[in-house]
């Protein structure tokens, strides 16, 4: 076991982690731990753009953006945080441009902007051009630009280091972050990183679904590490299903395709979104569009022999426009479906895309131990976190924005904290939990296989807690996940070695997914209303009287060692916007 000492440790090297690292490296001795290489992070798969009211191509302002974000989140958004997001968006985009990001340009050389779902002029009048973009590779450009600037700033990376545990020490009755424990993939060695400040920026957990746009590596490791140490997870029942995933594969096809004029059609060729969202049509918010697609499919208007998908139609757009604005997604259609998007519509279905919930933080990125107590030295930003700027449903282009605004804020806040704080003493045997976990899995002779449990988990999640939910389906999911967690105790791996043991790591990742899936299902069961991405057929309306509040889920361990989930609730921060019925 090796022990390292840094002022600031960042877990994850996607957009939020590297944006934080650029700030914290200037201010404190920083280490970035990533289970991949920085440029492999899933920020790179984001396509359509980053929202900011630059008003480069038409009238716009941050107040409209704030309103759209709050409305898009079905009023579960903390309004003070949304205002910060929309205000700081403008500098955030300009900062990236100055770092070198190659945005598409307007004829006069400024950053070009295009339409995106849920972003509107003057509180819902009509779609507005707010998304700053680089073709359909905006996430790729952000990831590359941030990595390039990390190279410039000399950021220190520990590549292929899996953070498996969060260390917490109680000092005078206050729980403080003491550091993290990591597993080095190349050698199997355990490393303890003692740090004054720790920032989680480790991304989402979409791999508990089968059809998902998420990378294989998005297994909620950060959320799970913190949750297992008794800290809460907020609003985990809210998961976004992106309307346009490639049928059956789930690969993302950007909403920018509809921003450029693409149209969703059912088997009759009907532009069905006109029925569900008369003003915004195909550019309504994602939860609305995904539900509309499944309504079409359920009512027998789906396409294909099994009627299980609809079409994204780009055939009326000029090939030059597709080549210039949507080169990657048209290539995906060619590569994976053998379809030519110039002439043929693309079969799509909603795909599990983004966790609105996560580790609760305040607007400085400080992690909360309950509704308002900060954990000194612990920070989170990006998809792993819940500020909450996305509420019950995130708007497209607001996540690339979130990682930049709150990654930067967390990086500054953590480094400044580290500059005035002392190291917190490590707990006794700091690596014991990880060593025990790794050895148990490596030595296990159990009969259960990772692949079978993971498949069963994904099947139950897709079947029971996807776009439409009921008491019955969620209860089924809770029961099945519970049974899978039992089976998981008996799981074993084939690779017993130390070197690049990805077999072992997949088993650990599955454990994280099981924990988080259970939190999600239990949180969803208790929310007897429909709001944003959480749609209960048995409670089809929003219920502001009883549920205008954030879910806070805690792991409890009884005296006999039994685990359970305790749910609590946190008020939503409301500033200037009264909840209204959401119509697009």
């Amino acid at each position, binding site marked *: 076991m090796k022990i390292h000492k840094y002022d600031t440790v960042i877990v994850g090297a996607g957009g939020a982690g590297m944006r934080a690292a650029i700030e914290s490296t200037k201010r404190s001795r920083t280490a970035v731990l990533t289970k991949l290489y920085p440029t*492999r992070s899933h920020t*790179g798969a984001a396509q359509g753009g980053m929202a900011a009211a630059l008003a480069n191509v038409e009238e716009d302002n941050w107040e409209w953006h704030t309103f759209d974000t709050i409305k898009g989140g079905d009023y579960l958004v903390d309004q003070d945080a949304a205002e910060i997001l929309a205000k700081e968006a403008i500098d955030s985009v300009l900062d990236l441009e100055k770092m070198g990001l190659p945005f598409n*340009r307007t004829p006069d050389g400024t950053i070009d902007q295009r339409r995106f779902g849920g972003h509107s002029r003057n509180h819902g009048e009509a779609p507005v051009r707010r998304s700053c973009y680089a073709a359909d590779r905006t996430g790729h450009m952000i990831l590359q630009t941030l990595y390039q600037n990390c190279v410039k700033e000399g950021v220190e990376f520990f590549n292929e280091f899996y953070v498996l545990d969060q260390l917490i020490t109680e000092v005078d009755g206050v729980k403080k972050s003491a550091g993290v424990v990591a597993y080095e993939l190349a050698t199997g060695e355990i490393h303890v990183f003692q740090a004054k400040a720790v920032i989680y920026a480790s991304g989402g957990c979409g791999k508990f679904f089968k059809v998902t746009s998420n990378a294989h590596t998005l297994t909620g490791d950060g959320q799970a590490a913190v949750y297992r140490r008794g800290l809460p997870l907020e609003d985990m029942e809210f998961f976004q299903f992106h309307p346009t995933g490639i049928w059956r594969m789930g690969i993302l096809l950007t909403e920018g395709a509809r921003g450029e004029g693409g149209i969703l059609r059912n088997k009759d060729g009907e532009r069905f979104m006109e029925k569900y969202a008369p003003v915004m049509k195909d550019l309504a918010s994602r939860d609305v569009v995904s539900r509309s697609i499944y309504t079409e499919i359920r009512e027998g208007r789906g396409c294909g022999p099994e009627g299980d998908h609809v079409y994204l139609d780009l055939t009326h757009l000029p090939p030059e426009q597709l080549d210039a604005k949507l080169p990657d997604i048209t290539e995906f259609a060619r590569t994976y479906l053998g379809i030519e998007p110039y002439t043929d519509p693309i079969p799509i279905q909603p795909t599990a895309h983004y966790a609105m919930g996560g580790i609760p933080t305040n607007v400085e990125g400080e992690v909360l131990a309950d509704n308002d107590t900060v954990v000194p030295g612990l920070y989170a930003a990006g998809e792993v976190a819940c500020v909450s700027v996305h509420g019950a449903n995130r708007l497209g282009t607001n996540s690339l924005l979130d990682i930049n605004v709150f990654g930067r804020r967390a990086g500054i806040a953590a480094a400044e904290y580290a500059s005035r704080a002392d190291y917190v003493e490590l707990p006794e045997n700091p690596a014991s939990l990880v060593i025990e976990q790794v050895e148990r899995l490596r030595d296990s002779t159990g009969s259960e296989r990772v692949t079978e449990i993971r498949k069963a988990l994904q099947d139950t999640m897709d079947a029971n807690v996807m776009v439409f939910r009921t008491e019955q389906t969620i209860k089924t999911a809770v029961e099945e996940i519970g049974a899978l967690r039992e089976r998981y105790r008996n799981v074993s791996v084939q690779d017993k070695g130390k070197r690049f043991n990805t077999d072992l790591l997949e088993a650990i990742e599955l454990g994280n997914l099981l924990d988080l899936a259970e939190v999600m299902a239990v949180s969803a069961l208790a929310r007897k209303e429909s709001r944003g991405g959480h749609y209960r057929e048995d409670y089809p309306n929003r219920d502001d009287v009883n549920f205008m509040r954030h879910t806070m889920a805690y792991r409890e361990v009884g005296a006999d060692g039994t685990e359970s989930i305790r749910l609590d609730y946190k008020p939503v921060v409301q500033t200037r916007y009264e909840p209204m019925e959401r119509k697009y």
Partner: protein
Amino acid sequence: MSSATLEKNSSAPADAESTAAHLITVTFRIRRFNPEVSDQAVWEDFQIEMDPKERVLDALHKIKWELDGTLTFRRSCAHGICGSDAMRINGRNRLACKTLIKDINPHKPISVEPIKGLTVLKDLVVDMEPFFQAYRDVMPFLITTGNEPTRERRQSAADRERFDDTTKCILCAACTSSCPVFWNDGQYFGPAAIVGAHRFIFDSRDEGGEQRLEILNDRDGVWRCRTTFNCTEACPRGIEITKAIQEVKRALITRRF
């Protein structure tokens, strides 16, 4: 309004939407190496049932998840964006997640081995550090002098287009590890690093071109390129890499870029 499209819809490619999976038996011949077990690399055959429309990455997962958990390879996004899974498939560098089985003659054994020129650490996993070091050495970040503007730097659409091709790089190393010069001399910067330099040299906002050109004027720099076009053929992003390298060479001579 949509009748024309409707007709097109109803004749959407049947192949793409056929739901029945036609499974065929495919043999994968994989180069295995694990120094914890043996210092010799060996070929190992696996026979699996696959739908030809699936990816090579799907096949590797099937082998790992159902037959041999020790098979080791890198992957993440699974659709050609993250750059983790470059490998030699039937003797050609490709991304396993962008290569469909039907496109590489599944009726013969499909060989899969690690990319060449970088030290193999286990099975298909190679040491990427020298590759990333070469990239970092070309100063792959915007260099400017003077005061920062309040708003964005202006750039015409044409100036933006000038370096568009090289912004697409995902650092997968398919190009560099296909280059015979790199195989023989690991000191050569390699195509990917030169692509990284090109992306900034030809960016109208950048003022660090001269510094990067001097770095690439080194004996291990651009002059080592023999224009075999292996890199261009290997690039999963379709970047015209050899052309980019030639443009950097020309810039070194003319000092115009």
